[in-house]
């Protein structure tokens, strides 16, 4: 492929998507186009939020970048390599609990290291360090079912950090948490992101969350998901979410999203009626 589109990307970007598309169930009568023509670059150490109505394909994009699903068209580069499968350098964090219930906290955190055959003492030490970074050093010997929802997500982040990822891919990780815990977790995530230096790609449908976290917000259209617009958020950190500037950005994002939510609704209703 020598076309202009597929030219190698600049070495500055951590993740680069070119002409990315995904068709679920391609070739069957129930085929559904989830993503179309995604061109997106994420710089090393950048925090990007993907914002869009439910079912617009933003989670699909995350799975493609993680290498867990193959794209139907287009390509993804991670630094200078083409993405062809999953890698510990691109850790995915899920909406629901994804801890192994039969392992305790430190065994969960060091799961990836044990897959690599690293010895017990070294593993436990790495788990201890990773748990310290998420503020859960005292929970090292606990079992997942003894932790609250927020703590479990922090353990999942520690598990990702233990692999020293260059990118954290987060699929609505705080959606199942209550509002107070969610605010705490956003602060926590900002700290982790600053310390780790990794790029973060964060999927949400909450405008507040986007304004609180992002360097850049990528707004998606309704299905099939395309990039509608990209909005930089250049508020200083730590952020004052009640400043007039933050209020203006929220309003701007709400307007951008409104049409798409309406369209997604209309489509769902048409689907239900047919």
């Amino acid at each position: 492929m020598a076309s202009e589109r597929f030219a190698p990307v600049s070495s500055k970007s951590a993740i680069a998507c070119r002409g990315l598309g995904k068709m679920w169930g391609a070739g069957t009568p129930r085929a559904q186009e989830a993503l179309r023509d995604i061109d997106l670059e994420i710089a090393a150490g950048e925090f990007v939020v993907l914002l869009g109505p439910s079912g617009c394909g933003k989670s699909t994009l995350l799975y493609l970048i993680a290498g867990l699903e193959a794209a139907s068209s287009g390509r993804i580069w991670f630094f200078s390599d083409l993405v062809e499968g999953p890698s510990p350098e691109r850790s995915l964090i899920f909406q629901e609990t994804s801890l192994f219930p039969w392992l305790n906290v430190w065994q969960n955190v060091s799961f990836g290291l044990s897959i690599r055959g690293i010895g017990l003492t070294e593993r436990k030490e790495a788990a201890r360090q990773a748990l310290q970074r998420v503020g859960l050093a005292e929970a090292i010997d606990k079992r997942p079912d003894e932790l609250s929802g927020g703590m479990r997500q922090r353990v999942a982040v520690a598990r990702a950090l233990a692999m020293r990822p260059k990118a954290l891919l987060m699929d609505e990780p705080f959606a199942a948490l209550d509002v107070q815990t969610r605010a705490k977790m956003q602060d926590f995530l900002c700290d982790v992101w600053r310390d780790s230096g990794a790029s973060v790609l964060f999927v949400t449908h909450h405008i507040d969350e986007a304004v609180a976290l992002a360097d850049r917000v990528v707004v998606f259209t309704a299905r099939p998901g395309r990039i509608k617009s990209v909005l930089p958020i250049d508020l200083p950190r730590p952020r004052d979410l009640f400043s007039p500037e933050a209020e203006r950005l929220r309003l701007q994002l709400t307007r951008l999203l409104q049409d798409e939510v309406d369209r997604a609704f209309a489509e769902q209703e048409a689907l239900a009626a047919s």
Partner: protein
Amino acid sequence: MDIAPPRAPAAGVFSPARLPSLEFTSRLWARTRQAMPRLLWSCLSLALFAGIWEGCWALGWSDPKLLPPPHVFLGNIVEQAKFFNTVSRWQVGVGQDAGPSPPMAVLYTILATTGRVVAGLVIAATLAISTGVLIRYFALFERLTLPVVTLLAPVSPIAWLPIAIFLFGIGNRPAIFMVVIALLFHMVLATINQIENVNRNLINVARTMGASKRQTYLRVIIPAILPQLFVVLRFNLFGAWMVVLVAEATGVGYGLGQVIMLGRNTFNPSLVFFTIVLIGVLGFTFDWAMRLLQRKLLYWVPQGAESLRGL
């Protein structure tokens, strides 16, 4: 751990928490008190059932020769125990009084039947889980074996009884074979079903962490399916008990099934009812032991609404 010699506690400072044995007793008491209502209801339920039976007998509505009430068939345990004999009496040179004493013979009989069930369960579970995993792991193995398993699953285990005797003759082996056959095909299908229902996120985490297919199966899929398979095993336990009795009644020298058959052939309903009580108590104890095992082995599964209904 305080190994130093116990000092006398300050006057007036006596708390039960300081004495581990006392603490343990109080905890035990609390648990007993918690279990009390359930235990009482169980006893009441049994008493009601036995009472109605005894009432029918007292009023002369039921023939004691056909339906002897509980106080008759449980009243003379020593007499009943005489019919339990683990010696092969049909063999030449074996006399009437040969073999263990009657109480020991009852024990041997119970142990023999229980042993067959346990052996069958262990073999069936091991075979079923490995077959199920292999079917999902190797597509070729699936294509070659799954149709056969699916076809054989609905066949009643009783239909296998002649095969068991043709293949294994008389003894422990046909009875164990019957238990294995009764469980195997269902458990293979259950294993496959459970593998399909493993939380995708767990598998995706393992893949992201760089786990190979083999590692994903060993470290994620197999631990994830074990709790549900244990429940399947417990539900099939009663089936295993039924099948082992049938096998013993026809193909084995001794066992609880053989005693039931003896009761039938000698027109001794008391013996049959006595054996039924034994089997009931055994089956219940067995299920309780399995639940205990489940709690120990599968410590991560939340305890709750999976206890045997009513008890």
